[in-house]
């Protein structure tokens, strides 16, 4: 779960990581009584990246200029996300820009601290072009990230004196935040020199979805569509895509493979719904209901490999509330005879081979469009 910049900075403030003075606004009038000192920077609060290039970040020297920018940015659409809030902060005179992050390294199976003197730009570009400018420390979770780690990392990006002291304090604190709040990423880019001190000018925090349950105090940013929300409430995993063939399967890998098979034969999946291992009749009924609600869906493809999941449960789920569209079912595995019998009685043909079934569903959709 990604946090908005202002939410990440609220966490920074709570942990005493230095940030610029600022406030969050949703309406123009909130700029009127502001005690902040101009120039101010206005930043669109969206979860998608690339807001600067999209015109979502502006500097204002006066109240009238600030209002003009705020009017333009509030309500703006950035990559499909509507801007509802602005972070308004005192625009600091920025010197050198550094980069600092803690992130889960999947291959090393460790949290790593990453720092660079080339801050302010995309760290992945730095990693590709000048990997030598990036310093890393892999962290033993039982030892933690100690001040000496911070000093070593800071020296590797050529910090000294007050700035090094600031870096050690900020990095050890950011590590504590990362572990305490269950972040899978905590990033400051840029970590900038303002006057003679280091300051977090931007903030990016992603909370581990699996750990959200133990953080009742954190905000909930669910950028879910209505259908994604319905699926989550039913314990199903759902992803919206932009084609016209709805897809239901059991198990994430199998559903991904099903999308690939359908695309291979020239079809366009409308969505991805994983009913999960051991899906019940009720799960299946809900799954059909959810995928069929998506507008523009012209056919449904159900691909089930019954392992823990029982084919008869799946069949009953389908027949108890059949979708209002053409359907192709591929069903094999545990209790498949009973599943096939139930579907046959309801006039539904059952395929055993997923590729044959995929070709059938694609031809159904194509046939109708011709």
């Amino acid at each position: 779960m990604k946090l908005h910049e202002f939410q990440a900075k609220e966490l920074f403030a709570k942990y005493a990581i230095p940030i610029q003075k600022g406030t969050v606004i949703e309406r123009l009038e909130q700029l009127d009584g502001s005690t902040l000192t101009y120039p101010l920077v206005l930043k669109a609060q969206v979860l998608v990246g690339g807001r600067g290039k999209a015109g979502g970040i502006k500097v204002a020297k006066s109240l009238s200029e600030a209002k003009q920018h705020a009017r333009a940015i509030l309500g703006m659409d950035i990559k499909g996300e509507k801007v509802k809030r602005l972070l308004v902060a005192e625009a600091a005179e920025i010197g050198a820009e550094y980069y600092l992050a803690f992130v889960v390294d999947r291959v090393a199976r460790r949290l790593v601290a990453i720092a660079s003197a080339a801050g302010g730009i995309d760290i992945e570009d730095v990693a590709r072009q000048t990997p030598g400018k990036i310093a890393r420390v892999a962290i033993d979770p039982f030892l933690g990230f100690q001040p000496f780690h911070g000093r070593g990392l800071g020296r590797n990006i050529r910090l000294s004196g007050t700035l090094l002291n600031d870096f050690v304090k900020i990095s050890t604190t950011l590590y504590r935040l990362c572990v305490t709040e269950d972040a899978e990423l905590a990033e400051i880019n840029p970590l900038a020199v303002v006057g003679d001190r280091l300051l977090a000018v931007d903030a990016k925090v992603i909370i581990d979805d699996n750990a959200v349950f133990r953080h009742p105090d954190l905000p909930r940013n669910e950028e879910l569509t209505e259908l994604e929300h319905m699926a989550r409430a039913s314990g199903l995993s759902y992803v919206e895509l932009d084609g016209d063939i709805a897809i239901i399967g059991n198990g994430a890998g199998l559903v991904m493979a099903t999308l690939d098979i359908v695309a291979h034969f020239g079809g366009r999946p409308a969505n991805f719904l994983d009913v999960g291992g051991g899906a019940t009749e009720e799960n299946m009924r809900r799954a059909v209901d959810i995928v069929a609600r998506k507008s523009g869906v012209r056919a449904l493809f159900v691909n089930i490999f019954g392992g823990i999941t029982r084919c008869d449960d799946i069949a009953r789920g389908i027949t108890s509330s059949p979708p209002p569209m053409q359907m192709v079912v591929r069903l094999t595995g545990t209790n498949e005879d009973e599943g096939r019998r139930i579907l046959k009685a309801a006039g539904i043909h059952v395929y055993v081979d997923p590729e044959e079934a995929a070709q059938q569903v694609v031809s159904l959709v194509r046939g109708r469009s011709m």
Partner: protein
Amino acid sequence: MSVLINRTTRVLVQGITGYQGEFHTAMMLEFGTQVVAGVTPGKGGQKAHRVPVFETVEEAVHETGATAACIFVPARGAKDAALEAISAGLDPVVIITEGVPVHDSLQVMEHARRSGVRVVGPNCPGVTSPGQCKIGIMPNHLFKPGPVGVVSRSGTLTYEIVAGLSGKGIGQSTAIGLGGDPVVGVSFTDALKMFHDDPETTAVVLIGEIGGSAEEDAARFLEDHRSKPVIGYIAGQTAPPGKRMGHAGAVISGGEGTAAAKVEALRRAGARVATLPGEVAGFVREVLR
């Protein structure tokens, strides 16, 4: 032969009295697995399918000589259960539980690394050595003993491919479900090493998916140790970037983790990579000839 587990493996099930634990203990027993002990704190002294239940792993190991662990404990208790199993020296420790927080997994992996214990999972279907031992939740009837090692990040897709192999009369030495989380224990590379060292495994099926770079890592290993043929399949070729496709670890981010990059890396390392899962069994039959 097999890797990770065999007919001498003595399994302890943590969370044996829960719904999943109890059901799959019965399935494991039916498969022929020696399930010798269960642990559920607060329920010591009971029995589950005639398997004695203990309060702690230490007592269970002392009383029954268990050698490996299978964990069904819910996500909030999974870390503690895994640390307990590792501390008791059980190996492998197979974590079936889905939804384990990543910082918990990081502690588990660190403790396992220090203790020389192999962890499989979390969020995995387990490990199956046909005719010998099964730890986890893979369906019993699909498997057939034979020469093919199978390693995968997915559950049902593995069943699909294993069923395809068995249907063509091709048996398996061991099937390993690595798990769908970003941080898991045994990796593709670890599994390839084990299969390369197992004299009775003659070919390996590697089933990957989008997200991370574990498949690319495995490809690097293959370039250096190309002693056995590898057939690959990567799921998520059409998955859009930035969307988590069901598994916590299945997400393309910052241009990393695409199916195309994984397919390319494996092909360059000499693996034959199928475009459709249905092609895998046929490719395996060709290399076994």
